[in-house]
């Protein structure tokens, strides 16, 4: 095997062609120096500091959150926020700067300029004034009940949540901590009550408590209860001191124990929160500024309450934004952070931006469609200017790679760059989206999440994989509505291609995968225990798994085939005829949806189709679909990972996600239409060259972030530029054949059937589970670049591109241009031409010099990345 050694001088001459392993995702300035300039001019206003801007921005309006405040009984309190909209487009928390008055001080008074406190009952108005602007909110004070009902979750669970006792890293973890288990955020108060009052340890797959079963409360000597001794650090406690003896929380628990540890008063279920909302739902803070959070709970009984002081707040990025226990945000450095608020039974999150500098006279950025509306609106709030429109070269390379996974031939590049047609980008999109290469590439894209592999189909033979692959391909080719794909796959029966992905004995896994792929939620954890981060219980998991419990295979020996059917009874997946049981409770489980609804008699006739219809009509479905398809074009989803939607993992652009999902739903789940919408957007077509305001932005699509090519696309690209197609040998034990010459890597059906070291080294997944591609550089890649056959023999191949170019008698200049057009979709710059020609002439062998040139090209970041 040939190993390539270069003179440092030669390599350094290929200015744009870095030989470094793929560790730096950002294009070098040098490269951009040679990039074509964008054709649209855009204002480049000078950013100003936040401090200077705030003084200049005019207050346009005020609003009070919430607009309607309800209070129950004398002494009841409720926080509020006063938000001011300013002429610079920002909304700021001006609560403390406002003059606040109430219409009836006898009914309600204002405390600390932040909350109202009831002193009577009736209706009043809260008014906020600032620099000539005013806003009002109504206050309704109901007469208080004689005695507030006791609710274990509300009173005791709140303490656990607020003090972090039931956090996932403490007793709220899967198995609890130090033998004591609490449900995450008091999600399952009955279970918490059991572990506290009856005692014992939690066991994952057994419903019985683990010995010793000692209560954590002492009814005779309430002060001696472990539940008080531990958090006050009166005895050793791994979690340290959570509250002090005599504090409010201490007293609450003490009183509860003294009263005999009741669970809930009759009617207390009305006090459970049905939903919670965090305000402001969106905020952009200037560095050094503060914002108070307000958390509202909608109770089952109809009340709305201020639960800010019943919540625990956390920031996923305290270096950018920190949050106090009382919900006060402090902006520390530019960027974004997710703030999570947890209350008993619920968690909610919001994404808050911190602005570095305010841009005066922020320009109007041209918008093409709803994507641009949302993305650019957010960029404006973040005071980030989007990059300019990509050059034709950038666009051409990007769109070809994203829609077809291939590089355009040199003549097409010339043709496109030369064209003056103002509609040429849209025309090219249409051409590519109707091309056979698009069918191949979209099939390849979907073959990852839908898992086309020998190990993922049943029986594990190439025939099964072929049928399954052909089903996906036909969906792409016919542009079948995506909800129909999903229904076909979830509810597949008979021997149709979609049914080949069902494997035996795996009803729970099958269900979890369908939910993950089509609803973007990961329920897997709930198979063995309640989900540690989300409100999915183990029971819910098994109820959902039960939809697949009757799935069975029926064989016939007439032609040695099998069909997937739903038997009338039992767990067909194992063929035992046993009903599906919850492994922990050993109880028989009937199918029920995630929302808890069971099946009607009619629905029971075809449970998987019923589930498929429910899933595809659920809002989660369209969200998950558009998020996944979005990721095909931006390298990441609006929620990332694309199949990990969680209340604690919010989307970067929630409104955009909703708008795309709605558009997708309203237009018949048309994949091609969605893709067209995405690639026609200015957002997609922005340049990868950053500006001063967006160079640190990695989440808001202010410029194109270079994405490393998928292993298959990279190999195909090398095959194209070297003019040597790859030969793919199959390594399956069933068929040791070879793909026809000219088959591209993205056309390979199964990901685990071919012996190709290059694909392995560059992160081709085996699809044994729903894959997340690995784009990290590694040592094997570096070695492969130096000595691998793809980087050596392929370039020197007789009849390959270099050989052909030499035989054609082309000049060095023309060869350099030709190779540059293929690799980068652009002509070599003047500087590149001069240096490279000089170096080629200086080498004793023209063939070797050109091989080295191609080697440099295919190892450059400009080639390895889609940008």
């Amino acid at each position, binding site marked *: 095997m040939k190993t390539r050694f270069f003179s440092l001088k030669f390599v350094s001459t290929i200015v744009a062609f870095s030989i470094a392993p793929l560790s730096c995702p950002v294009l070098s300035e040098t490269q951009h120096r040679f990039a074509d300039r964008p054709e649209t001019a855009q204002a480049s206003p000078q950013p100003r500091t936040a401090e200077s801007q705030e003084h200049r921005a005019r207050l346009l309006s005020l609003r009070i959150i919430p607009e309607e405040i309800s209070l129950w009984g004398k002494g009841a309190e409720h926080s509020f926020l006063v938000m001011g909209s300013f002429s610079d487009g920002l909304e700021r928390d001006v609560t403390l700067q406002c003059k606040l008055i109430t219409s009836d001080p006898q009914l309600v008074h204002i405390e600390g300029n932040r909350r109202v406190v009831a002193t009577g009952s009736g209706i009043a108005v809260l008014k906020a004034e600032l620099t000539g602007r005013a806003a009002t909110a109504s206050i309704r004070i109901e007469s208080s009940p004689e005695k507030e009902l006791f609710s274990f979750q509300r009173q005791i669970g709140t303490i656990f949540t607020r003090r972090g006792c039931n956090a996932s890293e403490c007793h709220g973890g899967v198995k609890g901590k130090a033998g004591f288990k609490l449900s995450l955020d008091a999600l399952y108060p009955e279970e918490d009550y059991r572990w506290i009052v009856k005692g014992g340890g939690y066991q994952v797959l057994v419903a019985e408590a683990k010995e010793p079963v000692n209560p954590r409360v002492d009814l005779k000597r309430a002060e001696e209860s472990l539940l008080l001794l531990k958090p006050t650090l009166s005895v050793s406690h791994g979690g340290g001191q959570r509250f002090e003896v005599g504090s409010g929380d201490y007293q609450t628990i003490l009183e509860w124990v003294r009263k005999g540890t009741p669970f809930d008063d009759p009617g207390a279920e009305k006090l459970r929160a049905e939903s919670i909302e965090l305000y402001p739902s969106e905020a952009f803070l200037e560095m050094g500024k503060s914002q108070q959070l307000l958390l509202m709970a909608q109770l089952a009984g109809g009340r709305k309450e201020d639960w800010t002081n019943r919540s625990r707040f956390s920031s996923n990025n305290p270096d950018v934004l920190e949050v106090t226990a009382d919900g006060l945000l402090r902006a520390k450095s530019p960027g974004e952070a997710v703030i999570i608020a947890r209350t008993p039974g619920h968690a909610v999150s919001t994404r808050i931006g911190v602005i570095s500098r305010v841009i005066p006279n922020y320009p109007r950025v041209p918008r093409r469609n709803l994507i641009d509306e949302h993305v650019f609106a957010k960029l404006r709030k973040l005071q980030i200017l989007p990059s300019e429109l990509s050059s034709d070269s950038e666009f051409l390379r990007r769109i070809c790679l994203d829609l077809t996974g291939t590089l355009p031939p040199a003549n097409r590049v010339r043709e496109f760059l030369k064209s003056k047609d103002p509609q040429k980008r849209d025309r090219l999109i249409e051409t590519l989206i109707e091309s056979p*290469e698009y069918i191949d590439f979209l099939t390849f894209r979907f073959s990852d999440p839908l898992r086309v592999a020998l190990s993922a189909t049943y029986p594990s033979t190439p025939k099964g994989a072929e049928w399954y692959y052909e089903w996906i391909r036909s969906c792409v080719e016919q542009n079948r509505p995506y909800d129909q794909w999903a229904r076909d796959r979830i509810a597949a029966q008979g021997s149709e291609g979609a049914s080949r992905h069902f494997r035996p004995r795996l009803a729970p896994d099958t269900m979890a995968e369908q939910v993950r792929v089509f609803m973007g939620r990961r329920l897997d954890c709930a198979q063995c225990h309640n989900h540690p981060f989300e409100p999915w219980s183990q029971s819910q998991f098994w109820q959902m798994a039960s939809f697949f419990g009757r799935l069975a295979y029926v064989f016939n020996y007439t*032609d040695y085939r099998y069909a997937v059917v739903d038997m009338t009874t039992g767990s067909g997946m194992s063929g035992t*005829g046993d009903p599906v049981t919850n492994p922990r409770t050993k109880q028989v489980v009937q199918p029920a949806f995630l929302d808890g609804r069971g099946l009607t008699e009619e629905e029971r006739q075809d449970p998987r189709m019923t589930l498929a219809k429910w899933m595809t009509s659920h809002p989660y479905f369209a969200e998950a679909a558009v998020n996944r398809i979005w990721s095909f074009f931006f390298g990441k989803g609006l929620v990332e990972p694309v199949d990990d939607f969680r209340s604690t993992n919010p989307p970067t652009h929630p409104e955009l996600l909703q708008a795309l999902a709605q558009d997708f739903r309203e237009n018949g789940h048309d994949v091609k239409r969605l893709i067209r919408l995405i690639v026609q957007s200015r957002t997609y077509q922005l340049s990868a060259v950053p500006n001063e305001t967006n160079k640190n932005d990695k989440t808001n699509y202010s410029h194109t972030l270079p994405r490393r090519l998928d292993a298959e696309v990279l190999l195909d690209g090398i095959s194209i530029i070297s003019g040597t197609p790859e030969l793919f040998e*199959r390594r399956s034990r069933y068929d040791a054949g070879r793909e*026809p010459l000219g088959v591209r890597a993205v056309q390979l059906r199964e990901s685990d059937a071919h012996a190709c070291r290059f694909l392995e080294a560059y992160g081709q997944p085996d699809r044994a589970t729903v894959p997340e591609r690995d784009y990290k550089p590694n040592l094997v890649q570096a070695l492969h670049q130096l000595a691998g056959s793809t980087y050596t023999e392929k370039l020197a191949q007789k009849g390959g591109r270099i050989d052909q170019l030499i035989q054609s008698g082309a000049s060095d200049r023309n060869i350099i241009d030709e190779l540059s057009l293929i690799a980068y979709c652009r002509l070599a710059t003047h500087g590149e031409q001069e240096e490279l020609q000089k170096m080629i002439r200086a080498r004793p062998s023209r063939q070797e010099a050109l091989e080295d040139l191609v080697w440099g090209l295919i190892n450059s970041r400009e080639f390895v990345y889609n940008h």
Partner: protein
Amino acid sequence: MASSHHASWTSRGGNSAVGNKRLLFFLFWLLPLAGAASTELRAEPQLVSVFPLGGRQGTTFCVEIRGKYLHDVSDAWFDCGDLKARIQKIEKIETKEEPAKKAKTDPSKSSKPPVEYLLSLEIDAAPQALPGAHYFRLISPGGISNALLLQVSSEPVVLEDQNSTKAAGEGQEIHPPVAVNGKISEAGEVDYYSFTASKDDQWLFEIRSAGPGTFDPVLTLYQPLGSWLDPKRLRRLAMNDEPNIYSWNAPRLSYRFTKSGRYIVAVEAFSGVTTPHCAYQLRLVRTHDSHTAEKQGCYSSPLAHNSEPWKERDFLRKLDTGRIDAVFSRTLKAPERSTTAVTESEPNDEPAQALSITIPALLEGTINRPGDRDYYKFTAGAGEGFVFEIQTPEQVPYQFMPKVAVFDGKGEEIVNNVYRKKVSPETWLNLLEPKTVYTFAEAGDYYLQVRDLTSRNADSNFSYRILVRKKIPHVGEVKITEDYINLHSGQARKVSVTVEQEEGFDGFVTLFVENLPPGVQVFPAAEVVPEKTGDAYDVPNPRYVPKANNVTLMFVADPEAPPCRTPYTAAVKARAVVGGKTGELIVAKQILFMVVRPEKTAEEKTAPKAVAQK
């Protein structure tokens, strides 16, 4: 024709241990014969492949046959008299074996493999030769060979031009209707053929191979439109790849062209798996010209002479009103009443709408819409045994999976045709059965429900025929693996026969062998039945599986038995014996039989490996 030699013996239903001690003596007598076997025994010719795969009716064409021990082949055998052949040439093939490498991977195979030969055969196909597949074999002093298939076509036949089939955008030009003989010689090879079609033409594309398991071809139809990225890119219009390699099914496409123009059809091996023997015949015929009557996708034997053996359990066996007569021919009784043909009449989705039938009845209907269920009502007496036989005449069962279930008057399902077979302590296999036997415990009215096993699949060709009849104890399938035997003079050869007893048959089954070569006798033999170990889970369910007895036949050639120049077609026949009365003779299997000289002559031992032209 030599004189026929007959032999016979009897198998008793339900008694697998024959226990005839005389047989043991017979076995002792055989032992010295077996020991006399020499390593210098003549080897029978072995056929590996044939190319091209066939020719046209009324023409003379040449084929090359690849195989082992072909050096002294003297004649060819065909399954019909309309094909005759002359041997043109036999030559040794220089193989590229790597003995050292082979020995390293498989020490047991370190000895030198047999030499391979290429035999050229000139074949005359009479004008009346039936189109379709024909079996042929070769005959040498070592005996008769295994069979390969040869296609006879009614359309013109051309040969692949290896130089032009490899160019994807162009391909070899052909003019349908035509049959093209080609070969996929290398892994990953694709053969392209181009042709012109007019708007609204409907063509049938079909690939035939040498037989099941030999080569798994894939058929793809393209339009050479090119793409913006690649002017040579072919646009796929249709593809057919049969889902398994075990069936007779040939990839077949029926395509109606919506535009006039040039098209390309490609042939390749599934997953690029191939051997040097992967010959195929690609047929392009107008759909209405096709001599194959089957609808697209329908499973059928491609044999020109379709002499299928008796089938008890096969969704494709023909059920008609004469089926009962055929069943009775395998026992002694005569039919009590004739079969009534009943055609379904919608609406019949509910038991209340069931069509009343009189037993025996042949039901015909179609599951033509999702969720369609057809009900029929019949009466059964207590203790009466019924049989439900199912045929899917237009669809292979993997598409239409007919579930036939019987419900009682309370709506309880009491029997169906899904056999839940336990194959391990924890694993069950669901098998869709074409025949179900059931004895009713109580007298009353019952409802037969027919539906697709899935809840959603349906089609106008999901048609069924169901024969509902009372049990007729009879001789079922008589199974023999061998279809040819080469017996050396003075030697013996064991043949196992499995006799199935259907629907409670408890009589005797006598077996006969007719038309054996001179000097060959057949004896019943006993052999030690290995003790059955394992769990009780593998006890077959008599509702779906018949009882079966194994009989061992020992064919013995007298040391003086003269060698055969041509094969004898020996017939193994069976006859039911019940209550001392005998039934009709049933042909169980025809076996080509040859007696061969056991040892090579001194001349043959020193003969050159390759034989010159005949």
